[in-house]
Every structure is written in structure tokens, then in C-alpha cells.
């Protein structure tokens, strides 16, 4: 009889969830005066506009060198923020992970910090930091740094607890010192995952950096912003193509590195 209750309850709560979701969707459509039918019918129109205006022409190719220079800034910023934030995150994660923590309160503190940094979106960080650093590359750098840091602390805590708990116990039992255990057991066990996540963050940061660049007036996002606002759609489309190519290239390179490390 308990089992029956359990399944009835589960089905009821799922039904309730669907009803609430549908209700919410309906209410928001009413409030925003969003016309569902018109939303769909405008898609072909958008495609027609893009194919007639949004492609690079000969004149826009002259801008390619300056676009590539901006791309380099963006890529550098993404790589620097991803790697340095990950290194910091690794230290904090060691204090946060159950396997390697020194005491419980430190662990709670590390996890709390990570949650705060992670849950504030990168664009929100950029807006907050605009007040301190203004429109400079510092703003973008720190926005990416904070989000990467929060994310990496969380995944590294999970990684450490998942892959090194057993060997840490063994090394503790041999009488090894705390830092020797970290260096000889935690680091080698976590290395493939660490590398993989850093590469993932570099990819993510290049995408975010483009958007953040629009806000902070730096990098390739800024190039796009100027060309777009000055109605130079050909050059703007060239920027998009350059971004897509570089994102795909970096993903290919990082997949290759991943295979080499694992």
C-alpha cells in the first residue's frame, strides 16, 4: 500500500508541475504581448534579410587584419582568464573537497564562495566590474576570471572526491605528509579531468568574451559592435565568420589535446 501511495504521489506532483508550467507560459505571453504565430512567420523573413545583406564582400576583407588583431586580444584574454582562474580554483578546491579538506568550515566556505561566483552570470559580472574598471580589458578579464573560478572550484571538488579518495587514504596510511599526498596522489589522479575542464573553459570563455567585449568595448565583440552599429553588415558578418572558425579550430585543438592526455 505504501508503494501505491508513492507512485500516485509522484504522478500527481508531475501533473501539477506541467499545469503550473503551462500556466506560467500563458501568463508571460499575455504580459509581453508576444505573438506566437508572428514569431514563427518572421523566421523566413530574417533568413531572406541575412542572405541578401549579411555576407562579407571584397571591401570588408580589407578589415580582416584589424579584425584578426582584435581576435587575438579576445583569445589571449580567454586563455589567460581560464588558466589562471583554474590554477586558483585548484587550490581552493583542495580545501573544499571532502577527501583533502583541512577542516569542515573551510570546506563550507570554499563551496560557498564558488557558488556565489558561479551563479552570477558573466554579463552581470561585466556590468558590476564596469563601475570599478570602466570600459577596459580588465573588466572583461575579471568577469571571465570570476565565472571560471566559481565553475572550476565546483567541478574540481567533485573530481577530487571522485577520483582520489581511495589513493589519498592509502598514502595517509603510509605516513605521507599532507602536501606530499596532494602532489603524489591528488594531482596525478585529477590531471586529465583538470586539463579537460581548462580546455572547456577556454572554449566557453572565447564565446563569452565576444559578448562581454560588446559591453566593455574590447576585443572582437567590440569590432562586431562598431561595424553593426555603423550598418557595415558585410564587415560584421566577416567578424562572425572569424569567430565561428576560431571557435571550431580551438575545439578541434582541445579535443586533440584531450586525447593525448587521457
Amino acid at each position, binding site marked *: 500500500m505504501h508503494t501505491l501511495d508513492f507512485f500516485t504521489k509522484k504522478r500527481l506532483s508531475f501533473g501539477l508541475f506541467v499545469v503550473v508550467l503551462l500556466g506560467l507560459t500563458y501568463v508571460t505571453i499575455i504580459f509581453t504581448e508576444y505573438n506566437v504565430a508572428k514569431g514563427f512567420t518572421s523566421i523566413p523573413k530574417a533568413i531572406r534579410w541575412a542572405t541578401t545583406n549579411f555576407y562579407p564582400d571584397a571591401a570588408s576583407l580589407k578589415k580582416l587584419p584589424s579584425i584578426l588583431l582584435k581576435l587575438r586580444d579576445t583569445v589571449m584574454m580567454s586563455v589567460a582568464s581560464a588558466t589562471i582562474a583554474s590554477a586558483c580554483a585548484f587550490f581552493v578546491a583542495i580545501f573544499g573537497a571532502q577527501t583533502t579538506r583541512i577542516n569542515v568550515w573551510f570546506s563550507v566556505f570554499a563551496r560557498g564562495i564558488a557558488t556565489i561566483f558561479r551563479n552570477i552570470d558573466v554579463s552581470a559580472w561585466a556590468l558590476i566590474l564596469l563601475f570599478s574598471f570602466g570600459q577596459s580589458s580588465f573588466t572583461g578579464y575579471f568577469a571571465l576570471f570570476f565565472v571560471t573560478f566559481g565553475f572550476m572550484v565546483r567541478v574540481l571538488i567533485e573530481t577530487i572526491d571522485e577520483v582520489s579518495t581511495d589513493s589519498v587514504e592509502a598514502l595517509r596510511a*603510509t605516513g*605521507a*605528509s*599532507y*602536501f606530499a599526498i596532494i*602532489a*603524489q596522489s591528488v594531482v*596525478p589522479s585529477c590531471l586529465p579531468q583538470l586539463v579537460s575542464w581548462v580546455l572547456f573553459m577556454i572554449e566557453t570563455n572565447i564565446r563569452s568574451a565576444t559578448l562581454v567585449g560588446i559591453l566593455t568595448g574590447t576585443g572582437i565583440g567590440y569590432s562586431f559592435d562598431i561595424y553593426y552599429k555603423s550598418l557595415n553588415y558585410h564587415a560584421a558578418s566577416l567578424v562572425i565568420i572569424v569567430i565561428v572558425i576560431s571557435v571550431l579550430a580551438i575545439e578541434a585543438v582541445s579535443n586533440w589535446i584531450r586525447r593525448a592526455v587521457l
Partner: protein
Amino acid sequence: MPLLHIAKLSKRYGTDKYALDSIDFTVATGEFVAIIGPSGAGKSTLLRCINHMIPMTSGDVLIADASTKSMNATQLRAHRTQIGMIFQHYNLVNRLSVIENVLHGRLGYKSTAAGVMGWYSNAEKQQAVEILQNLGLSDHMYKRCDQLSGGQKQRVGIARALIQNPKLLLCDEPIASLDPSAAKIIMDTLKDINQRLGITIIVNLHQVDVAMRYAQRIIGINSGKIVCDAAPHSLTPDIIHEVYGSEAGELILDFGEQHAHA
């Protein structure tokens, strides 16, 4: 002089019932002791109190008549270097080579700096090679541990414990994850270590027949209490039933419930 004296040792996790309840026994140098009991009896807890991997609640563990109750960090490390530990799941750093894992057994003797850097003397490396030869692993020395079979991994675990030059080996269900032939090799190896090197061995076992075949002395534990401490030949079915009593009782209960549902 006894090597190990467990004096009124009790352990309580939080506010649960006592996992170990006033355990009292003495082990002489060179003994081969098996600890048997149902799962949850407290076997693992007992072993981990001996090398202070978990703090005891009350009582004492004496090595060569010296109390280990209040030790500072240095004394604790020195205490652990004298005791090798072998685990059910081998607890190796799987991504490192066999010989690196064996050398981890020397970390207890090293300063933090030497341990972090992994500086091992030539004598230590030579000893690792010799131990691996004795255990029949010379062909696998430079292989990564994740390429080994379970039985081979456990022999690496034994090698890591032996290079500590321990007085005592604690083995927590060393054959529970192995097939019968690999299990036999491991038990024979432990017996050999005990007889040839005179190292005292305490091994937790789930299988009564293995304990009877290899040990000189069997200690039965149930619900954190010693219920028997005898030579293998004096073990009777009644005593074994007393050791595994609650587990047998549960089996009968399950059986009854199944009938009630049918």
C-alpha cells in the same frame, strides 16, 4: 613483549551506536590473525583505529607497550610508517606506473619537500625493484596500474606496504574483489611474508574457510564486540553461528516476509 595491545578500544561515529565496544586483545610479534564477522560488525573500523586513520572514542592502542593515544603530527606519521595497510580496492594511483605506486610507500619517511617532489634514493628504487621481483611483477614495473588485473593490483598494494619496512600489516578484506585463483595467490603471498619476513599480519576476512586455512588465530566480531578469540581448529559451528548470528537471523526474517507476500 606483545607487538600490539588493544586496550578497551571503543569507537562511536557521531551519536550512532558504538561501532566498536570496548575491544581488548593482544597480538604477539609474528602472529597471523584473521578477524571475521558479518558486514557492519566493525572490522574496518578496528583496523583504521590501529593506525589512527579514524580517531578512537576511548581506550588505547599500544605498540610495543607504548601508548599511541596522544601523538603530535610527527609522531602520528612515524606511527603510520611502521604499519602497512592493504585495501579491498587496492587504492593505487591508477594513472601512475607500478613502480611509482610502490615508491609511495616511502613517503612516510620523507620531508614534505622531498615528498612533494617525489625524490627517492637509488637504494629505495633498488628495494622497489627487488620487492616487485619477489612478487612476480618484474615484467609490469613500468606499466600503468590501470592496465593490471585485480590480482596484480593487489600485489602492487602489498609491495607498497612492504617497502615501508613495516612491523605490522593491516589487510582490510584484501581478497573480497578477487576471483578464487587470484585470491589464493594473495593469501599465499601474505602467508609467505608472515613466515619469511616475520611481519605480523592482521587480516579482515569475510570468508570463514579462508580464515581457518591461513590464520593461526581467529577473532570473531559481531556488533562491535569480540565474540570469539581462538585457534582455527577449535572453532565450532556454534561459535561461527554466534559470530554471524544477526546476519543469519536477518536471512530467516527475509525468508518469512517473502512467504507472507506470496
